[in-house]
């Protein structure tokens, strides 16, 4: 591995996750009741092969070429999203949403997953070119616009979970580029307004806090006023927006707040998932032996709730191992981002971190009731071709970033030796 100049820790973490993911997916199909997911792991293996090919291809692409091609990729992704919005179909876990692109009845994939990576690239290109971090909200507008377009298109499908991922990517990259935290808070304030608007008191308190913060930060007057107005508008709009949500989305949010409201319907998922995980105990019920899973009490056990299967069968130990693998993966990516030779590569890696972290946090958090049920897949675990491919490509890109930085001798110059050497065979590229 060293010979090929690939980052060993990254590969090990990803390899571990893929192996654990496949095992869990296989088990998720082993139920006592007839299930369509019985042999789904085989298809996942095929997708994995496609993903490895995609990763290899991504690895081979020079960041310069990639940076040059980014606008086209981003444009293409947005176009696909637009097409999906008009011609898409619903399927699987998102039966109510038009998130699939199909040709002649054959479902090609979910463009939103690819759009996430494309958006990361586009943001990296835009921000990498900046001389200094955007100092004010107005300067952030182009950045926000880049994320805003796919965010809105995905949100209209409507796919709340994927839309959230775009926000995760945006904030991770803004943070990485050095935008001040208080500016980030201001940027996030309309969202907070939206969420707090369900209670007039909490929203009123938030507006007061916001006003104080605005006076303290002292952005440009126009900016400040605009932001304040946007917050007020969000608060007012909240109710209308709520009414416009699909009933299943409303239910999901409501039962997040209190699963017992409707234990047979929407709360069912959270309750059964917690029961599966909790009954797994420390060591779990054993591979393929989870009763909650076997008897189909777990909803969507091969996609959204696959982590519950892992929790039930491998117990707390299995959960800690997989969470540790994810943590290692993200920390290694953080290191890669820090050592990247150029701004584009560094930001790209930061975007991938944002993407993966959002997916892991929301998906895993959802299985234990920490997060509302917004149905987004768990990287390397959940069944799903498009997303696996997107993740593999992202990993391929970051491998390239790591390889580039080692090639430049950056790692050695800092005296960091942990697996970092100037690749001897890297000159092949």
């Amino acid at each position, binding site marked *: 591995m060293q010979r090929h100049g690939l980052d060993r820790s990254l590969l090990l973490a990803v390899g571990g996750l893929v192996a654990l993911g496949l095992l869990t997916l296989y088990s998720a199909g082993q139920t*006592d*009741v007839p299930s369509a997911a019985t042999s789904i792991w085989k298809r996942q293996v095929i997708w994995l092969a496609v993903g490895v090919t995609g990763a290899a291809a991504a690895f081979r692409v020079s960041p310069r070429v990639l940076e040059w091609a980014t606008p086209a990729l981003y444009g293409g992704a947005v176009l696909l999203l637009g097409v999906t919005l008009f011609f898409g179909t619903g399927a699987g876990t998102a039966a109510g949403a038009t998130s699939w692109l199909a040709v002649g009845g054959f479902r090609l994939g979910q463009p939103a997953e690819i759009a996430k990576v494309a958006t990361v690239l586009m943001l990296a290109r835009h921000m990498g070119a*900046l*001389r*200094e*971090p955007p100092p004010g909200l107005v300067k952030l507008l182009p950045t926000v616009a880049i994320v805003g377009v796919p965010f809105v298109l995905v949100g209209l499908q409507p796919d709340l979970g994927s839309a959230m991922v775009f926000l995760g990517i945006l904030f991770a990259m803004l*943070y*990485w*580029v*050095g935008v001040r935290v208080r500016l980030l808070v201001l940027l996030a304030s309309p969202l907070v307004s939206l969420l707090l608007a369900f209670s007039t008191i909490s929203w009123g308190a938030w507006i007061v806090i916001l006003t104080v913060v605005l006076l303290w930060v002292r952005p440009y007057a126009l900016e400040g006023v605009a932001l304040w107005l946007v917050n007020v508008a969000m608060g007012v709009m909240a109710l209308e927006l709520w009414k416009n949500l699909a009933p299943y989305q409303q239910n999901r949010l409501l039962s997040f707040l209190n699963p017992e409201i409707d234990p*047979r319907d929407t709360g069912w998922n959270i309750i*059964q998932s*917690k*029961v*599966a*995980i*909790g*009954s*797994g*105990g*420390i060591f779990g019920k054993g591979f393929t032996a989870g*009763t*909650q899973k*076997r*008897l*189909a*009490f777990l909803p969507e056990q091969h996609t959204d709730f696959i982590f519950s299967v892992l*929790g039930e069968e491998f*117990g*707390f130990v299995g*959960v*800690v191992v997989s*969470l*540790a693998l*994810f*943590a290692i993966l*993200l*920390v290694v990516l*953080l*290191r890669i*981002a*820090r050592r990247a030779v*150029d*701004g584009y590569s*560094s930001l790209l890696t930061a975007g991938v*971190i944002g993407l993966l*972290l959002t997916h892991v*946090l929301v998906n*895993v*958090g959802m299985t*234990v009731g*920490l997060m509302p049920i917004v149905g987004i897949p768990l990287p390397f675990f959940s069944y799903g071709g498009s997303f696996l491919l997107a993740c593999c490509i992202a990993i391929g890109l970051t491998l390239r970033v790591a390889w580039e930085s080692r090639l430049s001798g950056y790692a050695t110059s800092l005296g960091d030796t942990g697996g970092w050497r100037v690749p001897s065979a890297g000159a092949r590229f």
Partner: protein
Amino acid sequence: MSWQNSPDIARRAGVGRTILLAVFAVLTLTFFRVQVVRSDRYRLVSEENRLRTVAIIAPRGLVIDRNGVVLAENVPGYSVALLAPSPGSLGVMLDRLQPILATDSATRASVFQRYRRAPTEPVVIRRDAPFEMVSALEELRPWNPGLVIQSDPKRRYPFGDVTAHLVGYVGEVTEQELEDRDYPGARIGTLVGRDGLERRYDDRLRGRNGKKFVEKDALGRTVREAGQESMLEPQPGETIRSTVDVELQQFVAATFPAGRRGAVVVMDPRSGEILALYSAPSYDPNLFIGGIDPEQWLELSQRRDFPLFNRATQARYAPASPWKLAVAAMALRRGIVDINSRMKFPCRGGMQYYNRYFRCWRAEGHGDLTLAEAIQYSCDVYFYQLGLNVGLTALLQDAIALGFGDPSGIDLPNEYPPIFPASTDYYNERYGRRGWTSAVTLNLAIGQGENTQTLINMVRFYAMLAHPRGIAFVPRLVAGNGGEPRSLDLSESALADLRAALVAVVDRGTAAGAQIADLRIAGKTGTAQNAHGLDHGWFIGFAPADNPRVLVGAIVEYAEHGSAVAPLATRIMARHLLGPDAVASRGGYRIETPADSAPESIPILPDTALLRAPSQDSARGAAARTR
């Protein structure tokens, strides 16, 4: 690339790493809480999720007659049930299966009602589904996973309407009954006895349901059954052996005049065991199995001749002439008369009592009679005077002591208590202290007035006369101790005298013509006044007279007179004592024109008319009076 300069980015990387690790720490802690700290709780839920207890229905016990012939049995049957995750999908399933199940809207409503009570238990749509329906449904099962077809033994009554009032029938327990705990131990869907022995001995017949644990999936479908060790075997219901002789019962049913209403009770007076108990008209209890069709139910329950009504235990009739033996027994016990005593006034077709004239049924009069002759000819004038001699207070007191104020205690459900004044206070309350005179004694003495008795209660009284020591056990359909026997408290010679008088009734008196060769039969006819038409005929008798082994009580509504009923009863005795060849069930006897018609109703009090509520039928009238 100023944003990327090293110290800054190193700092951000450091903070970023801290944030990352914090996020994972929070996740890990949450999982620690769920999987380690609270694991037990979730494990319990998971087990509850997985394992459900399913009742194994205990087979209901058989009912057999005294010779072991089966009166109620279980035959294989199937029930169709649905298991639905929500009321909506229940509706969809019902719609989809409608072409086969053909449920009407009432059934549908009750199905939904039942579903709401226990959504996780299968809702039975159809008990006793015919085989064609089961096979048609079985074909659709792959598309209807919530369809549950269970083997569900159903009840069958081989003798149908012959034993209907005896054995009763079963039905699914209702929500109201569960709430009232009418049937301890019953659960939703349990079949419980509704009438007859099925009801009375329900707790013994039902047995105890077993339990098994089955693994269910999220939709409640059974995946596999848990190990045998975790199973609780059902305890089958007891077999109840009745004292009834079903061959005799069949003979009774066949001999009972077709189209007539009434009842017959056959008892062994030595033990109180009931040998046959028949009420006409009857019904087929098999109709109730698998849930009775509402139209049939309406027909059965609304029919003017009330087939569901047990005329042996639930209909009250004026006891009429058979009652005279009670008055005679009281007078003998009190030493007021002996069997040869004569009354002050001979019978001249009636007697004057203060301002009223009380008639005898025989307008020409019976002349001067002894007690034995008065019984033989059922002379009213004699008993008017005998009643006055005993006195109203003593009469009421003795009658209560003999059990005429209480139900017989037979082991059948819903026996109606007789109506009989507990003391003279009854009259005070009813008519006011000065509103009545001792003239009520005269009516009471001949079995009219404020006195209605069930057939079974009269039979119990005659059992005392038949018993060598003058005692009667509580009538029993299932052997067992029914309680303390009642006693006439008469000397054996006095009892023999009364029996001799009763023999004379059949040989030469009102029941002459009902004799059977080779049998000495003792018995008493009676004619109960009926405000609604022809009088009801009584006959109660026993044989052989010197050592009675069988006692038959019969009442035929609108039979005009007891002498028409007597041949029916004597044939039953002969059939029982002499065997099947002695007498044919039909032909050979005729309903005779009355030799003695009932005495005219004597209007003592304007209110007595009100006692007989104006209603369709004596049965319903009796029911109305109890309210």
